[in-house]
């Protein structure tokens, strides 16, 4: 209501402003305004007042029967069609699993069935088209029975020969929905995927004030609006797609004129992957909400989100548990072939935990904190912060050692940063006041950075002698600085040594190796999770020999594939187990483990989270970007920003780091990067220490002066005070107000300067 009034006022205002415009015409009835979508990189001011939630579904009809109850929740089921209602007793709000009636809605039959069905199954027809089946299709039978504190539905889809149990169990403030693997029968091998309650809490247009939260990048909100700007849905595989099912047809000419290639170094042109299996919805900010955590089967789950305007007028989000993947089977060199799908079904228990949030917890901060508690309970998150410096925040310094370059007839190494140069840069940084350093040295394997993995040792002679390296890693290993070796335990270059070219690499389901090709250095593969584990173990002694007690792992922590080499198959779930034992071993053998964008299952092994996302993918339907990931991890793991070398506006980036509680990162070389022009690392365009020093120190000081007050502290609150002015509260009572705007912002008797921040202690706030 408030919005509408505001809009009306605004229009009137526009009319007045319009009269000063040269185009203004008296009595011009056409004056109106278009929709403008400003950047979705910030969080909007919450509108808390006057929200009334009025939803026809929020009433428990007479068909419903109470099946379970706890102190906070009550579960009602309509046995005719397995519709479910959950009552939040503290707010009296009713959550619904599906629409009850679709009359008057603009939905075709298929969508209407979909919206009304609490269980949806997908199968492949004979042309490998994906088809849906709902509870309203023919030959569907259900057997609904009460179980201990919940309900069980044995549902059978006769036409496709699929049947399984859906169990719903109620706990304190949450309920679990489960499809046990053992209960699934799939006579014809047609089952593709299952969605439970796809319309759980679905909201039409902008009917109520609230939003959907999706784990895109740092986290994104999609507010319920009538804008309908989106034209496509958000469908993302948790932990990224499985490369074992992807066949990229090599199209010639793609790279010739305007190909994108591997240019994503400076800009994340690829949408961000989902590393946390969590999403949620808010109905009325600070009123009601839920957060869904995929507890089991996450590696086989898609997060499917349809904003209003895409196919229907409803905003809905769900988990799709995938049992069979479609893939392309080539049979000729020219890549002729046919589409088919996985014959053996993925074997996993599908389980969702849906926590009902109320009042103050009913927003994205509440979701993040609830998810954080969940991770702590499961032991996936623990206090891993090593930083012992009592005063200053750390900065991540990544040195780029050397790169391979073809000169005339042979390859040489372009030395960019020798070990001596690295040492003198560090000395210079310390002299300049940056004492707390998190150091990563990359590209020091023999022959340089590219084309050498998975081999890690020996180290490149042109960068320094063995003893020089040993010294470097020994000296730079105290409370204030830990020098880590950069490793990638997954990429294996065809031309490199140190792995078995047949048995260590991962194969796709169509029996072809997972293979890519890179400029200058030829083809590369992915190692299987077990090969990564073995190669790591083989190298343990070398790490000790070189005094390397810190490690930074790229690619491996964020990548999850299966392999289908006959006799040595590894599923996605088994890969997770392998990686868990690999990183467990790693955290036992190293003082400090830094991981690049690890997936949820590796959070507990990371002392440092590197390249923490500060943005979302900026999908057009996203309205806000929020630091969900940062709220979850802050205080347990130190987070470092992506490399700031390529940031178009470093001041803005510093403010964002201050707001998100993330430490800065820089890539440094002693030599100017144009030397890398004809090498695989030509994408490094700005890294010379002499060039960057000044702005690096300036930005560090800026960020340090804010974040040093909240080291190791958790984020407990976040509030948008005004457009682009944000207050973040920490567990020690300190709060930081960040002002991104061009004008000063007065706050509690103080002023936050334009494009600046203000640190307030608990005392100041009163």
């Amino acid at each position, binding site marked *: 209501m408030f919005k509408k009034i505001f809009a009306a006022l605004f229009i009137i205002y526009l009319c007045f402003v319009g009269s000063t415009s040269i185009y203004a015409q008296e009595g011009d009835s056409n004056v109106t305004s*278009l*929709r*403008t979508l400003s950047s979705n990189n910030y969080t909007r001011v919450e509108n808390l007042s006057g929200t009334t939630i009025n939803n026809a579904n929020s009433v428990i009809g007479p068909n419903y029967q109470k099946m379970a109850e706890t102190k906070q929740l009550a579960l009602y089921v309509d046995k005719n069609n397995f519709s479910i209602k959950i009552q939040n007793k503290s707010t009296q709000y009713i959550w619904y699993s599906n629409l009850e009636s679709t009359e008057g809605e603009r939905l075709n039959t298929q969508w209407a069935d979909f919206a009304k069905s609490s269980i949806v199954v997908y199968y492949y027809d004979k042309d490998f088209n994906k088809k849906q089946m709902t509870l309203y299709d023919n030959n569907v039978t259900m057997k609904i029975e009460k179980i201990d504190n919940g309900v069980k539905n044995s549902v059978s889809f006769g036409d496709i020969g699929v049947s399984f149990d859906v169990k719903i169990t109620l706990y304190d403030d949450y309920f679990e929905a489960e499809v046990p693997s053992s209960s699934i029968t799939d006579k014809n091998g047609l089952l593709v995927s299952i969605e439970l309650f796809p319309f759980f809490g679905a909201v039409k247009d902008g009917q109520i004030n609230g939003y959907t939260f999706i784990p895109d990048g740092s986290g994104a909100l999609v507010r319920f609006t009538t804008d309908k700007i989106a034209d496509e849905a*958000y469908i993302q595989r948790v932990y990224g797609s499985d490369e074992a099912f992807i066949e990229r047809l090599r199209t010639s000419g793609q790279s010739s004129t305007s190909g994108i290639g591997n240019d994503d170094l400076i800009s994340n042109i690829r949408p961000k992957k989902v590393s946390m299996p969590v999403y949620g919805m808010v109905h009325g900010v600070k009123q009601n909400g839920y957060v869904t955590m995929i507890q089991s089967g996450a590696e086989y789950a898609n997060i499917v989100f*349809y904003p209003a305007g895409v196919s229907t007028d409803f905003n809905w989000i769900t988990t799709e548990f995938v049992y069979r993947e479609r893939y392309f089977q080539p049979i000729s060199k020219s890549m002729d072939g046919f589409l088919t799908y996985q014959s053996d079904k993925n074997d996993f228990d599908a389980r969702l935990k849906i926590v009902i949030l109320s009042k103050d917890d009913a927003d994205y901060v509440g979701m993040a904190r609830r998810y954080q508690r969940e991770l702590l309970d499961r032991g996936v998150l623990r206090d891993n912060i090593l930083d012992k410096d009592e005063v200053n925040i750390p900065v991540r310094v990544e040195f780029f050692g050397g790169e391979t370059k073809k000169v005339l007839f042979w390859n040489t190494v372009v030395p960019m940063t020798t070990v001596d140069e690295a040492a003198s840069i560090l000395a210079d940084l310390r002299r300049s006041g940056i004492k707390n350093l998190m150091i990563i040295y990359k590209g020091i394997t023999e022959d340089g950075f590219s084309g050498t993995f998975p081999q890690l040792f020996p180290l490149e002679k042109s960068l320094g002698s063995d003893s020089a390296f040993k010294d470097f890693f020994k000296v730079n290993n105290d409370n204030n600085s830990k020098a880590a070796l950069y490793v990638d335990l997954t990429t294996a270059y065809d031309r490199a040594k140190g792995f078995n070219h047949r048995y260590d690499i991962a194969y796709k389901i169509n029996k072809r190796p997972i293979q890519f090709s890179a400029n200058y250095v030829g083809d590369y593969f992915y190692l299987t999770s077990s090969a990564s584990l073995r190669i790591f173990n083989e190298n343990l002694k070398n790490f000790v020999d070189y005094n390397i007690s810190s490690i930074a792992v790229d690619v491996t922590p964020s990548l999850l594939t299966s392999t289908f080499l006959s006799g040595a198959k590894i599923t996605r779930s088994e890969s997770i187990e392998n990686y868990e034992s690999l990183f467990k071993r790693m955290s036992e053998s190293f003082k400090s483990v830094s991981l690049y964008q690890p997936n949820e299952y590796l959070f507990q092994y990371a002392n440092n989270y590197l390249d923490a996302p500060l943005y979302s993918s900026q999908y057009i339907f996203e309205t806000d970007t929020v630091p969900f990931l940062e709220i979850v991890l802050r205080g347990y793991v130190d987070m470092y920003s992506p490399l700031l070398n390529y940031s178009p506006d470093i001041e803005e980036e510093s403010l964002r780091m201050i707001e998100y509680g993330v430490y800065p990162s820089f890539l440094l070389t002693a030599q100017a990067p144009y030397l890398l022009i004809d090498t695989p690392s030509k994408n490094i*365009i*700005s890294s010379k220490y002499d060039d960057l020093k000044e702005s690096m120190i300036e930005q560090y000081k800026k960020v340090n002066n804010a974040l040093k007050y909240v080291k190791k502290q958790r984020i407990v609150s976040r509030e948008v005070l005004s457009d*682009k002015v944000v207050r973040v509260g920490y567990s020690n009572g300190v709060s930081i107000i960040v002002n991104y705007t061009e004008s000063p912002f007065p706050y509690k008797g103080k002023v936050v300067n334009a494009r600046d921040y203000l640190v307030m202690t608990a005392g100041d706030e009163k």
Partner: protein
Amino acid sequence: MDKKPTVDNVSYTMAENRKPIILVLLVLLAISSIAVADTPYSAWTINSDGKRVLTQIPYYPAGMITGDFAGPQDIFIDALGNIYIADAWNSRIVIMDKNGANVRYIGQDVLIEPTGVFVDEFGRIYVADYGSEQVYVFEKDGNVLKTFERPTSPLFGRNSKFKPQKLVVDKRGNVYVISEGSVDGVIQLNNDGEFLGYFGVNTTNLGILQVLQRMFYTESQISQLFKITPPSPDNIAIDRNSIIYTYTRNAADQNVKKLNVAGLDTLEKGKRFFPNGADITVDKNGNIFVVDDMGYIYEYDNFGDLLFVFGRKADDTLRLGQLRSPSGIAVDDEGTLYVLDKELNSITVFKPTVYANQVHEGLILYNQGLYVESQKNWENVLRMNSNFLLAHKAIGKAYYKQQEYDKALEEFRISKDKKEYSNAFWEIRQAYLMENAGNFIILFIVLWLIYRILRFFDRKYNTFHTIKAGFKRFFSIRLVNDLNKVFSFIAHPIDSFYDLKWENRPGPIAATILYILLFLVQVFKIYYTGFIFNNVDLANVSLLSESLKLYIPIILWVVMNYLVGNISDGEGRLKDLYVGTAYAFSPYIVFTIPLVLLSNVLTLNEAFIYQLGSVGIIFWCVVLIYTMIMQVHDYSFFGTLKNILVTLFAMLIVGLVAFILYVVWNQVYAFIYDIVQEVITRV
């Protein structure tokens, strides 16, 4: 993933669009210069050496204005920042302020399908209406001031159509109209709609076939051929100085043109203009922007040098800053870009980053010749992107102006600019020569004196007797003697080849050594030729391919010539040809190294010396080969010529056969591979 078909989806979104939209405008676009790091596209440029390199993001997506447009075709921004949209399918012009607010419509009653819009300095709105085949001029308030119909002047052409698509107006009020299929160029009208002439016609590119046809066909035959007409320009822009820019699709290197008063292109030819684009615009500093069908936005400086390319077409779910089907581009005085998308029915707003601003500021100074003043900007640019060769060149020029030639030389070397490098090198060389001229003279005199003294002693006391004897003995070794013959081959080819045939001297071992030397000389040339004269990219050189390039033709030549000689009364033996060919390369082997060394101290001013040397070497080699064939086979002059031509033809045939065999083998291999694959996967 394909979800269910949505029957009524399309219809209702259309309906939705038609409704007048009144919405919240909480956050206006005008807000500040806030930049973001993560853009859903990358940015790159093409350096002067033709290589694509990444750059910093020059523009970030600042927002999007979505409207109730339908297939909008053109966008224009006036000096006050107001936005004008040719809203084609809605048959109207939409006007709004730069925040997308204060929207007005004009021409709803008269326009049918407006595809081009332009506003002059008095606020009059010119519209190209493709639908009604007319140009409308509106007053500020939307009243029709004038309409221009198809010109009646006979000069316009009796059959020429008038289908206006785009237009611009210059300071004098002349209107330049792009008309569909107007092969004669841009239609120029005066302010009353009278036809003034055609402007900036494109040229046709005739293929070899067409040229031959034109040469040999009779006039009536030519008239029956399919008419080859130059491509008609597709879009047009005008800058502050009333310079017209045209854009033509699929027109190879003339797709972007900057036309002078005479209608001639003033941009340098041969630049890489690859966009197949939709629209062109020019900012107040003369920088040219083009948006293409792939969603890439290109920015060129006013010489037509590519500065950066950024943007991307959305391949799945749309992200802010990506495009679907761009149809127009405009830039305001603050450098903000507005890109119109006819599929999204929206305007995406891009704002320049710190990086782009530095480049722009640098360019303004640089283009005025204020190299030294621009140095600071370029240094900042390089700090952000050390691979941007234009910046290296600009800094080089600044150093050059400050007479710091060594530093300038290094910058020019990095920027791979041979001309500037040569200039800097000339200065350095000059200074060196001036400084050391005296020393050189003294050195020369000393050496000469030493020589005289040594000779004196040698004559008188025979001091160097033993050394001389040693030399003599060394040169009497058969192999050494043979190798030494290269000099006599150069000087006395006829005698030497005669000896080769009748005395079997030199022998094949020496020839083999010469072949190896030939390769080493070739490598030396590739690697050590001076920067100014070296056109080889060392990164692309491989030992194997270089040796194959050299030896395969030689082997083919020797063998084929022997066979050809055999069937045409040639007397030459295989050995003679093998050895003879090796020695025919004598000039190359002997003179290339000095020439390469010389190339390191020459500048472009003396390039003719190097070129003369290179040509002379090749010419002398050809003469030797000719002589060799004549002598070895004992042919007449014309007999030799015939033999050589037949040999070359035979080499070509062998090459073709080898190629066919290669193709066939590949097919066989692929066939077997496919069978095996099919068996593996199906069984």
